[in-house]
């Protein structure tokens, strides 16, 4: 509907054209167009049931879809699963925590696309894991069981597994929903640092609109399974759009890092 305004960027990490997804006979998303430039941070917002997570899972190659999705110019449909996993890494909203698994083993799972199905990890895989653990300050947790970590530490481990995939695109589904504001900032700053240092492209869904606006370079508002607005946070986070699509009464305040969205009581 609203192709990116920034289409002058020559390389797209992700190009989504007229994508629709039907799950169990119900159309979840339809007619979605999206362009994400290399190195960009795009955040998808929208009310519950808008299709944000479905879009993310589709881009991650986990759902059948109509239309076309291209990753760095290659059709997602034609990619082998391993090749796709080397290009796109996902952090699910509520990742499964395998009982008894140590942090290092969990992060090593991220090397799966590089390890032949019936073989074991190579030295290079172990080095990649060690590198990620060091970058995320997780080395001292390497031998700890995942269950024994706090929410914030766990979120970093989930991120570490995704980074171990060596992917260029990082898909984050509600990366901070389980965290307090301090840890929310930790995780988002970390992702932003990794994005800038490593040329990662980040596509995230988020519910906290003010925080979403602070980190995203560009935002997409979804409602009813399709994109209803796209642009900079200032374009998308407006009182009118939010009132119309969230049925929410909010005040948007101009903050220094971006618009701040404050809910106000509907009646008093």
């Amino acid at each position, binding site marked *: 509907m609203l192709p990116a305004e920034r289409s002058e960027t020559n390389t797209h990490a992700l190009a989504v054209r007229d994508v629709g997804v039907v799950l169990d006979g119900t159309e979840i998303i339809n007619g979605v167009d999206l362009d994400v430039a290399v190195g960009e941070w795009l955040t998808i917002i929208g009310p519950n049931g808008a299709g944000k997570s479905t879009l993310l899972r589709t881009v991650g190659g986990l759902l059948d879809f109509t239309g076309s999705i291209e990753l760095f110019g290659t059709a997602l449909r034609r990619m082998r*699963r391993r090749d796709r996993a080397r290009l796109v890494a996902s952090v699910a909203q509520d990742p499964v925590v395998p009982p008894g698994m*140590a942090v290092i083993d969990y992060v090593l799972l991220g090397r799966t696309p590089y390890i032949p199905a019936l073989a074991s990890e190579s030295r290079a895989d172990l080095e990649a894991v060690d590198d990620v653990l060091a*970058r995320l300050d997780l080395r001292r947790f390497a*031998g700890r069981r995942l269950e024994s970590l706090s929410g914030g530490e766990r979120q970093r481990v989930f991120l570490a597994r995704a980074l171990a995939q060596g992917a260029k695109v990082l898909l984050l589904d509600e990366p901070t929903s389980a965290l307090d504001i301090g840890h929310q900032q930790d995780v988002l700053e970390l992702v932003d640092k990794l994005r800038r240092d490593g040329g990662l492209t980040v596509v995230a869904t988020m519910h906290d609109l003010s925080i979403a606006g602070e980190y995203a370079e560009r935002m997409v508002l979804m409602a009813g399974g399709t994109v209803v607005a796209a642009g900079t946070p200032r374009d998308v986070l407006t009182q009118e759009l939010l009132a119309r699509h969230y049925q929410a009464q909010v005040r948007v305040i101009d903050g220094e890092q971006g618009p701040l969205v404050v809910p106000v009581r509907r009646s008093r």
Partner: protein
Amino acid sequence: MTGPGRKAPATPGRKAPAKSVAPIGAVEPVHAVEPVVAVEPARLRVRWLAAGVGAVVVAVIAGLALGPVGLNPGGVFIELLDLLPGVHLHSGLSASEQAIVTQLRLPRVCLGLLVGATLAVAGGTYQGVFRNPLADPYLLGIAAGAGLGATIAIVGGHAFAQLPGAGGSGTPIYVPFVAFIGALVAVTMTYALGAAGGTARTPAVLLLAGVAVTAFLTAGQTYLQQRYVETIREVYSWIMGRLTTAGWHDVLLLLPFAVITIGVMIGYRRQLDVMSVGDAEAESLGAHPRRTRLVLVVVASLGTAAAVSVSGLIGFVGIIVPHTVRLMAGTSYRVILPLSALFGGAFLALADLGARTLTAPDEIPIGVVTAFFGAPFFIVILRTSRRL
């Protein structure tokens, strides 16, 4: 800002302004000053491998030396070495003692090793592909299918023996074959039923299909047993499981199944670790969880069916051995599967030793021994382990 101090509960002094000026690079220097203990990923440690091999050796020597005729364990050990190609040693055992070792006891011990290893590895594999700690090799209807097959064979053999001119009764030699067919038919039915759910098929659907198939086939078996009461004893004895003394025949029958299926399951050990994060995440990691599940269910069922057809329904091994290994040596399938093969084999060989010596000259059904000694042992492990 993600320094070690973050583990402590937030102090009142920790305010937003301080955070917003914190340098973004603050993540980096922390690990440099901290003494880092090198942590290795889960893998089979040499000491556990040695313990597993040691258990097998002890089980084999004990199984060969103990019995109605007690033999000198040292001599048995040398006799075993003598069997190896290219080795010639004098064990000091008499000719008849040598015959007891190589013709009577060794095949039975080997059968115990193979059946125990197959059941234990198949159990561990099922627990992995279904992400369910309660899964055992009989889950998808194998026990009921094999039981019905054996019942049909025994009842049929009995009816045949009643015919004029037939040569008396006795358990027909084709019981294992019919049991094997029954087990495979049962698993196929379960998979077909589970697959009827379409693409939305989940492991849970398969497990429920297994429950339905088990109930259906067990009903058939119960009906047959009631209808031909005179065969109950025979059928019952088959169901309780025993390692026959049919010489090397059963061992050679089972050997290729056991070796190939155990080999394939162990080959997939890392994939089972990948599957522990669930199908969706495993797919996003580039794995093929559904394909892996199909392959492993087929292979584990084949191995289990082959084992069951020669040994009867020996319960408990497929659950207790992988869990004991998991509790003691680690939760990765890279550890669980190889060690389950060794400890499962040793456990069953020892259980069989108990079955034939504890109340000699009578034999106790081996299933009774595995549960009677296995359950308390397992409880102790469960209570003392820190992993659950």
